[in-house]
């Protein structure tokens, strides 16, 4: 209370000013009855709270500022990515449970459904893809190793060391695994890559074009 005596005096003065002038001498304010309310929290409290909540992760903005969402167009070398492709070949063997000389299951076979579901769930990083058909004529015939996979776009690194961005929804992609050849409608790949391994996939989907 002693600290705030200045403010108490100010309150007293303010209150007496409100009273009609000829009654002012009767006003008796007991200082103990005045309680000061604090408008804001003290600085100490605030800072402690903020420190407790300080998160250690990068925000999306910081992530983008570090340049992690973009790839340099011409700095990647095709030869650098060949080990990745090799790794991917091993992965796809494991993922589709393939052995040497396996054939693609026919439509009437039992494991066809399961197989095609797994095909959509696979990871494309490191796959050698080529564009078979597209609504955009200039994209047809592009090929390269897929280095980045986002919701709507694939980034292919061509043999001429240039990263090209190919929209998924307009294209039909082809890819080879051993002696097998797959055609993938890009329309059905339009999900974020992390979600793709969880998402339920329809049994029957319509091709486009």
């Amino acid at each position, binding site marked *: 209370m002693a600290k705030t005596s200045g403010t108490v005096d100010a309150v007293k003065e303010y209150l007496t000013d409100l009273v009609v002038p000829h009654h002012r001498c009767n006003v008796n304010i007991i200082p103990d009855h005045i309680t000061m309310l604090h408008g804001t929290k003290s600085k100490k409290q605030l800072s402690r709270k903020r420190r407790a909540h300080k998160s250690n992760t990068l925000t999306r903005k910081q992530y983008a500022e*570090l*340049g992690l969402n973009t790839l340099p167009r011409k700095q990647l070398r095709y030869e650098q990515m060949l080990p990745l492709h090799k790794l991917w070949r091993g*992965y796809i063997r494991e993922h589709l*449970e393939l052995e040497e000389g396996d054939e693609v299951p026919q439509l009437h076979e039992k494991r066809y459904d399961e197989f095609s579901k797994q095909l959509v*769930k*696979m990871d494309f990083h*490191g796959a050698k893809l080529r564009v078979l058909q597209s609504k955009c004529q200039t994209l047809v015939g592009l090929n390269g190793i897929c280095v980045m996979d986002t919701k709507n776009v694939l980034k292919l690194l061509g043999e001429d060391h240039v990263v090209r961005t190919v929209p998924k929804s307009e294209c039909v992609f082809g890819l080879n695994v051993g002696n097998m050849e797959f055609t993938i409608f890009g329309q059905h790949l339009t999900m974020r890559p992390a979600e793709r*391994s969880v998402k339920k996939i329809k049994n029957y989907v319509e091709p486009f074009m």
Partner: protein
Amino acid sequence: MSQNNNSNNNKCKRKILTQRHACSRMNFLYQAANLMAHSNNNTLAAYYGKLCRNVGTKTLMHMSPALKRTLCKRCSLPLLPGVNTTLQVDKKPEEETSLDVEKEKTPIKRSRRRKAKSKPVEAASIDQQTKLHLECSLCQAKRRFQLNTNNECWVESPAAIVQTITVSKQSAEERPEL
């Protein structure tokens, strides 16, 4: 892998099979991240590391803690001391400022044991209180270690392994070596 599955009981088999694809995918992504880090391509390495982590969260799977710690906490770049980062001695204790020379001082640290080069250890200059830090070359986040090995992580202690064996025997434990 299939043989291992058959040897387990039926219930366990089904449980593993549902997660198998996500597991192999995470395995692949982790390896890809390491590969990119080795070929000095930090952007892609962080991207694959992040994706590996995201697949884990989406499919409700856990990476084994030793592997999880090799990724940067902030940007998921695989931190490989000697390849894209250097392990340094903290400078705070003043009398030991000359210790920077011994950057590859890792053998004492558990989780880094396999990557450390075997250099002669000058044990006199480093005591239990010395702290090491590892700075991420991409986002400048720091990880600190203490040389004091008395702190055992529960997951790494032999008592905990008994429980984890049944779930992650086949596929999850295949990741470590690259």
